[in-house]
């Protein structure tokens, strides 16, 4: 039963991956403008354009090109950048660790900030701290991550001088310096997401605490602490897990903007440069990779969700 469900999910994930890559490929095939022309400039002779089109394989049927592109993409060959003339794969592999580290750090921050705060607020429901948390949450949720980044730059970089704004440290040179620098952008992405998580966890905990099974737990002599940690928390985490999955995907793509704020040469940076240079192989590769990552995250969340909630696990 369970193996079948996982198989079904995997198949539907693969279909989504195919549809996504098809939509991306289609979009980039019908774009206004000829990539051969844009590469050679408008002064190029028609003969040279035609020769380059032939060389780039642009004259062959659409589905053939899609199939070939997909196969080579799956094999790790993502084409050659128009503007840098180097393989796209190298460009991505070079930048991926930066974006990846930042995403993981931000996600860890979201979890370690929101879980204790959410539990504390729920435990002291209606108290002064709880009300303060609700108000702060509501404001933090409204702060765009890039503005949070600017505020953090001012506070920690300019006023407290804990880091040098714009002074990115490469991970090949000084790994801990790299992590130290990434902490601040990670915090900027994490704060609004953490606020949303706190809000959800708090209300989920309070909702669960009203349910009959907590009364049963008390009737067996559990302490309030045990009722919370051994009974209520796991139930309350079920909706939070789904939200965290979406947050992880959001953080990953949100890093595109935050990299700009902190001057970090990650995936977001090359995506933006490539968009303005019309360097389509790079744009396509990054978008497909990010979309793939998001889809895979969704699949993982689904599996974890099933693990946390036995009622779903036994369905279908």
């Amino acid at each position: 039963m369970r193996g079948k469900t996982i198989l079904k999910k995997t198949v539907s994930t693969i279909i989504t991956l195919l549809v996504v890559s098809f939509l991306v490929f289609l979009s980039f095939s019908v774009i206004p403008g000829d990539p051969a022309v844009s590469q050679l400039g408008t002064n190029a002779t028609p003969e040279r354009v035609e020769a380059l089109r032939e060389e780039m394989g642009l004259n062959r049927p659409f589905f053939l090109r899609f199939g070939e592109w997909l196969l080579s993409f799956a094999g790790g060959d993502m084409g050659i950048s128009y503007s840098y003339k180097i393989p796209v794969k190298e460009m991505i592999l070079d930048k991926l660790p930066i974006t990846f580290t930042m995403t993981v750090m931000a996600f860890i921050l979201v979890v370690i900030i929101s879980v204790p705060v959410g539990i504390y607020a729920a435990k002291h429901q209606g108290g002064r701290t709880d009300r303060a948390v609700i108000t702060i949450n509501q404001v933090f949720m409204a702060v765009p991550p890039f503005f949070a980044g600017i505020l953090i730059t001012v506070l920690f970089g300019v006023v407290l001088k804990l880091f040098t704004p714009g002074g990115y440290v490469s991970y090949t040179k000084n790994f801990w310096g790299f992590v130290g620098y990434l902490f601040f952008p990670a915090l900027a992405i994490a704060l609004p997401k953490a606020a949303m998580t706190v809000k959800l966890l708090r209300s989920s905990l309070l909702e669960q605490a009203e349910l009959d099974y907590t009364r049963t737990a008390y009737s067996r002599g559990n302490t309030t602490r045990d009722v919370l940690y051994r009974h209520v928390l796991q139930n309350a985490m079920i909706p939070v897990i789904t939200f965290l999955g979406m947050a992880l995907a959001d953080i990953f793509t949100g890093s595109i903007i935050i990299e700009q704020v902190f001057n970090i040469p990650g995936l977001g940076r090359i995506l933006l440069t490539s968009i303005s240079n019309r360097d389509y192989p790079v744009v396509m590769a990054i978008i497909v990779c990010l979309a793939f990552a998001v889809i895979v995250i969704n699949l993982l969340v689904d599996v974890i969700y099933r693990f946390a909630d036995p009622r779903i696990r036994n369905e279908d």
Partner: protein
Amino acid sequence: MEEKEIILKVQDLNIEFHDHLIPETVVYDFNLTLKAGEIVGLVGESGSGKSMSALAVAGLLRRHDMKKTGQILFDGVDLLNCDRKVLRKFQGKEIGMVFQEPMTSLNPVKKIGWQVEESLRIHTQLNKEERYRRVIEALENVELQDPERIVRQYPHELSGGMRQRVMIAAAMICKPRLLIADEPTTALDVTIQAQIVKLLKRLNREEGTAVLFISHDLSLVKRLCSRILVMKSGYVVESGETQQIFYHPGDAYTKKLIEAIPAYEKR
């Protein structure tokens, strides 16, 4: 029959809610004495305060927005005014509780075995194997088939009647002296109701556990209990031996309740 020891004595219990602007009293001057091994019924319509009284006895009304006065003496310890720590020593060990809704009273994400053995984990030093053995025993004792399989299942995989048996097994696992059953059969089918009542009666006979049985169904109470308290809007309007109340009801409200029982059940 020798005189049994008194295990529970509730004196002048008053419960007042303070979560609205105007305080509302839900239980007035509630008095109850329960002897070891006895089954007492607490009858009344919904909102009569019977569940509130029972929850107070189980120590489950420890909220700040209500005011309680009086005494609940269990073994001479006042459960109403004692420290929480002292109260917890009784909950699950000396006093077991079964609730109305077997669907929601079990934790949906924990295995049955884990939930049934919980009181043992809290109150005893038994190791895992010993606890497992006791769980299997308890599940067999409530007449559940295939207990080895049930311990590994989750609540949603069981029927309502099975869940209520699981609740009883969990409440009885520490062999408490008092079992409080708050409308344990209301949410169940009629045939299963009868089975649960029979089960409670058997457990009472075999284990010697006293039972405080709360119900709105007078015919069920008549089959099970030796004594009855009738409650209406927070007051105990009548109390006494089951036979006496049935054949010589003193209060108009009790008469109405008795009249409401279908004739064929009166026998």
